[in-house]
């Protein structure tokens, strides 16, 4: 059986209008390590892309009956990826080992992630590797304040690539940096001009990549260590990001029960959930990574990145209180030692069987929550 890490990784390159997505993509595709990537773009802009595996897709979103926008399936993407998968299998296109999707400037990355992780065929062949968001250092701050789309693209990112630094004399305004950290405590922030030979790592580092997972997990809490996290929040965007830590090892079963319940009720407001967990009975850290209602299968590191053995959970949320989240997980973790609830005999006379195979209407129950 194919393990999750063996699936074809998919990167999403997003960013607000005119923030330099295509220019970044041009540079990325010049890396020899990314020569076998399939590129899907939704619009052919002014900056031309010269790549042998390039396909255009027209953005269209199918909203599922349960109505949550983040759980919408991108019909265009579904069709394009299925088609390319089929062509790869038949040998009609070079065997691509990675897919890079460039979104439009106003796109919401969540439905793309949902499509990859939940679509009946795609989820057995592709996995979400990472979300890269470009931020224009000249206009970024005002875009975050004025456009919720821009704030969400930043909040959901694994990497924030700062562009157009040459127009700001090579400087990144400290106010913008603080704004980015407030929205996303865990993303790597890097200026496009400062990236050297390892440019490809923007795409290839993720928690399922054997070479890159240690680097990736170490970055998750760097923002917090630098003193920028701590529940800072941006009132304009109503998004806040923070890291919560737990001194005692977490019971994995209790964590699963808690996290699925939280994401069922509040998944639309949990933009990202990442964690380096000290799980009871497991000597090495267990990594979890979630995007709104969807959680990837867990991964693990061979060793702890530092001397700190506490569980660290990164939350990027909308309108959820940090203290309540902390208290809730502690209470659920403590339940492991509670006495079992009595299970009363089953009532037979008035039983009404209502088989519920799926989360109402989603059709793809496996990947949700």
């Amino acid at each position, binding site marked *: 059986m194919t393990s999750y890490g063996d699936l074809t990784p998919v990167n999403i390159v997003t960013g607000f209008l005119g923030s330099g997505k295509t220019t970044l993509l041009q540079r990325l595709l010049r890396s020899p390590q990314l020569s076998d990537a399939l590129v899907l773009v939704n619009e052919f802009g002014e900056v031309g892309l010269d790549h042998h595996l390039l396909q255009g897709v027209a953005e269209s979103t199918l909203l599922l009956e349960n109505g949550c926008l983040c759980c919408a399936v991108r019909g265009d993407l579904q069709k394009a990826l299925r088609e390319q998968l089929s062509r790869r299998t038949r040998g009609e296109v070079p065997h691509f080992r990675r897919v890079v999707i460039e979104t439009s400037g106003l796109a919401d990355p969540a439905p793309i992630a949902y499509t990859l992780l939940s679509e009946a065929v795609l989820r057995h062949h592709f996995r979400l590797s990472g979300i890269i968001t470009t931020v224009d250092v000249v206009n970024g701050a005002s875009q975050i304040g004025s456009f919720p789309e821009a704030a969400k693209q930043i909040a959901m990112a694994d990497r924030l690539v700062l562009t157009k630094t040459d127009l700001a004399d090579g400087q990144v305004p400290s106010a913008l940096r603080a704004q980015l950290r407030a929205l996303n405590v865990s993303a790597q922030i890097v200026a496009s001009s400062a990236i050297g030979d390892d440019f490809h790592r923007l795409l290839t580092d993720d928690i399922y990549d054997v070479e890159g997972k240690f680097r990736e997990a170490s970055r998750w809490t760097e923002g917090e260590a630098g003193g920028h996290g701590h529940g800072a929040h941006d009132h304009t965007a109503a998004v806040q990001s923070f890291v919560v830590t737990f001194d005692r090892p977490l019971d*994995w*079963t209790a*964590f*699963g*029960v*808690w*996290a*699925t*319940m*939280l*994401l*069922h*009720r*509040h998944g639309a407001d949990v933009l990202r959930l990442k964690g380096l967990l000290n*799980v009871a*009975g*497991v*000597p090495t850290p*267990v*990594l*979890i990574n979630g995007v709104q209602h969807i*959680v990837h*299968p*867990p*991964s*693990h590191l061979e060793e702890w990145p530092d001397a700190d053995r506490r569980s660290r959970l990164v939350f990027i949320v909308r309108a*959820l*209180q940090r203290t*309540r*989240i902390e*208290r*809730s997980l502690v*209470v*659920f973790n*403590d*339940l*492991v*030692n*509670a*006495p*079992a*609830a009595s*299970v009363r005999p*089953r*009532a*037979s*006379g*008035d*039983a*009404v*069987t*209502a*088989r*519920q*195979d799926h*989360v109402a209407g989603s059709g793809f*129950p*496996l990947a*949700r*929550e």
Partner: protein
Amino acid sequence: MCALCGVLGGKGHWSDSASAPAAFAGRTEPQTRLRERQARTRLLNLVLKHYGVVVRDWSGSSYLLTSRTGRTAIVETIAEVWSAAEGLSGRSCDPLDEGYLAVLANSAGATQAR
């Protein structure tokens, strides 16, 4: 598939650690799928007691939920438990609700005080 009853194996879920041994390498105590389901069912009953819903593991492949009036629902993964429980109880299952957390904390604290 169970050879006796013809029940297919349950669907996978990210929270099933027994089916992801690589992610839990070096575990001090080996985990089996059934033992994990047993522990999860026990926890679900503690969590859903407040909503008047009882959970049973059904053939190691599904969860059978029963309300106080005897209405039942069968779901395959833990992710589907919550919408089924809400359907049976008519209440929203919110792990961040202060009142609910106080009830849960009492049940956990009762044991720790012993």
